[in-house]
């Protein structure tokens, strides 16, 4: 269970998160919607431990552990995964090598045996096929020369192989056509289960047709201004965010 209480955070002294309270019980998927600049990405970075995002108040626990006290890689080992809004290019680093290195780092941190290259490749190829991605996805350098859509799908591929228990998806659907969007949704739904939870940041109701959320929250100007069931997304789709920021 993810529990965020009274979370405030600044960037360069500017307050971006202004008191977030949010609980995501195990097994649930929550959607976060909200206008540009509301602080959605900031929240995802704070949860995954990015430098430069200073937490000035509040607390975040994940399965009882103080998430904010951990290094980013410790959070990954604890099961947290961030699908970046803007995935980063790593020139010269092969995708398969990158994911395997990450997976083994996580396994080592958990005291599990490392996966050998053959085992890993078998799993990775299966995941590539399941996500209907081109075969060369594993051979290419991480995100280098990828189209916008390929980068997003590569985030989902990494998620599928790292098997997090808490996924933070930051606009993973943006810029995707409907087929790609379905693939992303399948990637998330495949992980769904009693121990898996996710925060799905999106602008579009259409993603939520495929990943049906347990709860929908609206983040505006650094605060959760409304929460509701899946029907809230439909309402936002119809009426927009007008008037919400003042709330």
């Amino acid at each position, binding site marked *: 269970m993810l529990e965020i209480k009274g979370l405030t955070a600044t960037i360069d002294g500017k307050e971006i998160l202004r008191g977030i309270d949010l609980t995501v019980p195990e097994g649930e998927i929550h959607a976060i919607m909200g206008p540009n600049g509301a602080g959605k990405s900031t929240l995802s970075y704070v949860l995954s431990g990015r430098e430069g995002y200073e937490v000035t108040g509040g607390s975040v626990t994940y399965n009882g552990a103080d998430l904010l006290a951990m290094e980013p890689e410790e959070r990954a*080992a604890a099961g947290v995964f961030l699908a*970046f809004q803007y*995935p*980063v290019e790593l020139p010269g*680093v092969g995708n398969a090598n*990158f*994911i395997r290195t990450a997976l083994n*780092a996580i396994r080592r941190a958990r005291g599990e045996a490392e996966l050998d290259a053959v085992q890993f490749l078998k799993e990775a190829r299966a995941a590539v096929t399941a996500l209907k991605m081109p075969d060369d996805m594993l051979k290419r350098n991480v995100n280098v020369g990828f189209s916008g859509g390929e980068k997003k799908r590569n985030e989902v591929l990494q998620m599928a192989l790292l098997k997090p228990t808490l996924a933070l998806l930051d606009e993973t659907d943006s810029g995707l056509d409907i087929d790609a969007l379905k693939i992303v949704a399948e990637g998330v739904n495949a992980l769904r289960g009693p121990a898996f939870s996710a925060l799905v940041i999106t602008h579009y109701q259409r993603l939520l047709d495929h990943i049906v959320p347990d709860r929908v929250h609206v983040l505006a100007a650094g605060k959760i201004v409304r929460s509701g069931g899946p029907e809230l997304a439909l309402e936002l789709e119809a009426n927009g965010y007008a008037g919400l920021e003042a709330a």
Partner: protein
Amino acid sequence: MPAVNETIETVDRISGGGYKFGFETNIEMEFAPKGLNEDIVRLISAKKGEPEWLLEWRLKAYRAWLSMEDPAWARIHHPRIDYQDLHYYAAPKKPAPKSLDEVDPELLAMYEKLGIPLNERAALAGIAVDAVFDSVSVATTFRDTLAKAGVIFCSISEAVREHPELVRKYLGSVVPAGDNYYAALNSAVFSDGSFVFVPKGVRCPMELSTYFRINARNTGQFERTLIVAEAGASVSYLEGCTAPMRDENQLHAAVVELVALDEATIKYSTVQNWYPGDAEGRGGIYNFVTKRGACRGRNSKISWTQVETGSAITWKYPSCILQGEGATGEFYSVAVTNNFQQADTGTKMIHLAPNTTSTIVSKGISAGRSNNTYRGLVRIMPRAMNARNFTQCDSLLIGDRCGAHTVPYIESRNRTAKVEHEATTSKIADDQLFYCRARGLSEEDAVGLLVNGFCRDVLKELPMEFAVEAQKLLAVSLEGSVG
């Protein structure tokens, strides 16, 4: 390959952190008195029982050296070296052994610690090892297999005794005795090194590997290596080294000469990991090396690959003289500097003949307060019709207190020649580090991964067993460079 991993693990265990490759063995040394003069040169030559011509050659080099100044053009700074305060000859006390049984057990124990594959391990790894301990070669393996193929692989002292006509023909033919300050010094006092001769039409049946160790306090180390590949022959030679921890700076001035005749190929790979000094810049090896290959024959090829992570100072420009029509020269380099290390390294490609081609790929990585300079010369002479050069020269900065410098000289005297030069400078970006860490990698592993990615085009040129070692070395030598 197993040797490589064991080496790292074992040494790691013994040294207990810090410099992972530093320890000393306790073998009684026989020293020549400190200082350098004609008598010392004569002593070295006499100790080795050398013929008169070689003594004369050494003396000529010594006299040339006396009249020379150490070069001041490189971007390196160090206190003046007192050449009279060094030993120029040191060797294990016993005479060179004929078999492993005669080798000092303590020495063997050290090699075992290092994981050098002398016995069965060498067989498993498929590598012949000519292990050099200070000045005298103590053991050579796989001589028989090589001998059957007609390949000569032995210490240069032995070559002087057994194959004097070959040594006399080629020694100094690529790097003349008076070529430069350090080469002249080496020619005067060279202690030992390797000799490889691959006769006409023979592909050397195994990778040749030498591990150099510097072990005697205050002993300058002057290796001399000579590799000759006759027409149609090919050979791949690996050189790798680690050094014990010590406080004083140590001078190392090696010379490597390569000769490739018609259609011959020589691939020379180096992983250099000598003691770089401590985090404050104290100690470390001064490494002044002259490496040069002559592509004498038609369509001959010489390829240098180097991974330079060690030494306080690296001064090194492995070069190719493309004399034969259609000859190819290659230089693939990774140079890492951290803390207060200084590297001024690069290559020279001298195109003398038509249709000659050269490729330069240089990857410089600077961290800490280090300075890393690429210095390269591409010279196309008038006769070199249709010569081609491609140079890719990339610098990667870690932190903002280090320096990266690129000094490419291009001299083209033939209009049909095509010379291309590309250069980039980049930093490891915060978002790249965070992306990796968010996936579970530690900061140091992330740097290692990104640096290995940056160096990929060079690392893939290394023989497999070296590629693995090199990747680890890159990570090790950049430890503490971030965060």
